[in-house]
């Protein structure tokens, strides 16, 4: 059973189709990357999944049941892109308050907050106010308040912005840990290298529509362009083969693209015939960043306003 099933979700505003027929599924324990250019409709989509907005059409199923925000938001943790906390409130009180709003009793809330504060070495912050914290520290606190209720679904919108590498890693480790314990995580960001590193599944949305859906590896396979890198132990002589073309040449390292109708074995065969020693031979898969740019490029960078007839 999927943790979350989103079917044909639509949300139209007067001037835009913010989300236009998006469907996806999320398995328990998976880390799911939601990608898309600015204004693609990611925030609107996430707001519907968290119950902040109601979809115009479509259906959300949470743990096999029709999504009911009132009941289910106790099992959801949401860290929006625009992060914020009550500036004048004491940090300990604030964390407990936010946990209580997720339905925890005061005693449980207290226990959980203490547990996380010790884990993140934040005990000394308890009586400080949020305004006394640096931006990175606030971010850490925000993450803690998001996961206090031990959510089954965690939605993180740009969770690493403003964090130094040490704290980024700390939170990354926690994300892995939470996923291992069965939480499903939706991770929205523009930082492609983080997506490649963390996510096992991605969807790409543009102009309110899903244009790509698959595992990170599957997507890369789907968009591979038969580009290989070959390492040789000496400079080859004249290279002229119908099987491939050299794209880039760096001393004894060649980047080449295999022409249509040929296989990688044909490349190796060519160099074997040349009697050049081969050190390495490896396919170069496109980075998510390349795929992203390829798919999104050509469409206008910023969304134009349009009249919607829904």
């Amino acid at each position, binding site marked *: 059973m999927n943790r979350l099933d989103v079917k044909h979700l639509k949300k139209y505003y*007067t001037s835009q189709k913010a989300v236009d027929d998006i469907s996806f599924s999320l398995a328990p324990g998976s880390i799911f990357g939601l990608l898309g250019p600015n204004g693609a409709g990611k925030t609107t989509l996430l*707001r519907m999944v*968290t*119950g*902040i907005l*109601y979809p115009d059409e479509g259906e959300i199923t949470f743990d096999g049941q029709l999504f009911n925000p*009132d009941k289910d*938001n106790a099992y*959801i943790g*949401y*860290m*929006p892109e*625009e*992060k*914020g*906390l*009550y*500036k*004048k*409130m004491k940090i300990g009180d604030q964390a407990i*308050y*936010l946990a*209580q*709003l*997720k339905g925890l009793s005061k005693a449980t809330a207290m226990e959980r907050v203490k547990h996380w504060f010790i884990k993140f070495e934040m005990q000394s912050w308890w009586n400080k106010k949020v305004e006394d914290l640096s931006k990175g520290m606030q971010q850490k606190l*925000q993450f803690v*308040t998001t996961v206090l209720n031990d959510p089954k679904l965690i939605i993180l919108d740009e969770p690493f912005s403003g964090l130094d590498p040490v704290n980024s890693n700390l939170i990354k480790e926690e994300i892995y840990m939470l996923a291992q314990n069965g939480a499903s995580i939706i991770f929205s960001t523009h930082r492609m290298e983080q997506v490649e590193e963390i996510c096992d599944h991605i969807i790409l949305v543009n102009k309110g529509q899903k244009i790509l859906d698959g595992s990170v590896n599957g997507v890369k396979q789907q968009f591979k362009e038969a580009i290989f890198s070959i390492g040789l132990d000496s400079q080859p002589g004249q290279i002229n083969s119908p099987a491939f073309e050299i794209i880039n040449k760096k001393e004894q390292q060649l980047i080449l693209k295999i022409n249509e109708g040929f296989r990688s074995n044909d490349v190796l065969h060519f160099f074997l015939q040349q009697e050049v020693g081969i050190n390495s031979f490896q396919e170069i898969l496109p980075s998510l960043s390349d795929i992203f740019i390829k798919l999104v490029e050509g469409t206008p960078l910023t969304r134009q306003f349009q009249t919607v007839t829904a």
Partner: protein
Amino acid sequence: MNKILLVIQREYLVRVKKKSFVFTTILIPLVIIGFYAVIFAISVSGGHDKNTVAVIDQAGFFSSNIENSKGDESKYIIITDQSLETFKGNYKSKGYDYLLYIPPMDVTKSTSNIQLFSPSPLGLSQKRKIERTIDNAVELKRLQSANIPREQYRSIQSDVSIENKVLNGKEEKKNVAIVAQTVSFACGMLIYVIMLIYGTMVMRGVMEEKISRIAEVMVSSVKPFQLMMGKIIGIGAVGLTQFAIWITLIVTLRYVLHIPGLDSIGTTPGMAESGGMMTTINTGLGSLPWALIISCFIFYFLGGYLLYASLFAAIGSVVSEDQSEAQQFVFPVMMPIVLGFVIMSKGMSDPNSPLVIFGSLFPLTSPVVMMGRIMYNVPVSQIIASMLLLVLGILFFTWVTAKIYRTGILMYGKKVTWKEMIKWTFRKS
């Protein structure tokens, strides 16, 4: 339901626990008392300045010595050996404060063109006193020319003061209109101030949530409506706490200082002069329908607050980033409050005029206006209608503002227009 209680609790505790809460709760009444003390002091003072006035009297208003009017402590010296033109320039250096010039005229016919020269504008009460002194002299002259003895004139003059007695069937009670008026005005004024102070407090609270960007985190846990109502009720409770503290303070102070009765409330400046006034005030206060006043006050206090707090919450939700942006939205909400205050002031003199009756029924003005006329035997049907309309008004405005709030609280970076807000109101959820 449990969540709204949590929100109320937070909103309440965060404000009450602040150090500034105790401070302002005690300071505000002191400032108000101080403010009125200063006004009182200013209105009473001014009679004590003793000025020397040089008089060039070419009409012969005054005989050799000038008879001062009551309360006028200026010293008048008649100048005969100087012309106006030369003396105008140097009266100051000769030790005079003012120069009074009376041009030649027939005293029995007109008294125009009298001039008073002073280095700076004259105070109103000072001017009145000098005028009265001249009036006395003119009167005397006219009496002389009409051959009427002064004593006879005095005996003709009349100075009536009416005592208002109210017949209410069972017993005749002494009533002092001014006491009822003062209490009415104070109640209306209090509700007016409450709506403004606590309304803006709600607005700032909502703006804080929006600007600090916690709103989105909050609405992923609680419904926007719960968040809004929690804030409104929480801040309302802060207001009630403040009132409770004030009442306790007043009661304790009275007990400690042994101030008898309710007399401290009804005293107005100038009335203290007459000796029996205290008893009149006491009986006046005693004749007021206190049960009605207090129950209405509580009702209109809560009703007015709930109505305007939701409006202010909606304003807070559509403002992003800066305070000055709030101004354009605050103005239309302030207007009916101020209008209510104006109508109430009118109701003081004419409590049954159509405008005042309308004002006391219309939900946006009724809390202030009705409190201002509650003393004047308002028909029960009107009170019930006014209360019903207020409850309907609260329901309507809460419904409308909740819709605006829900959308506004998540809207960033874009200036919201009135047109959009109206559109949000009619949009289905």
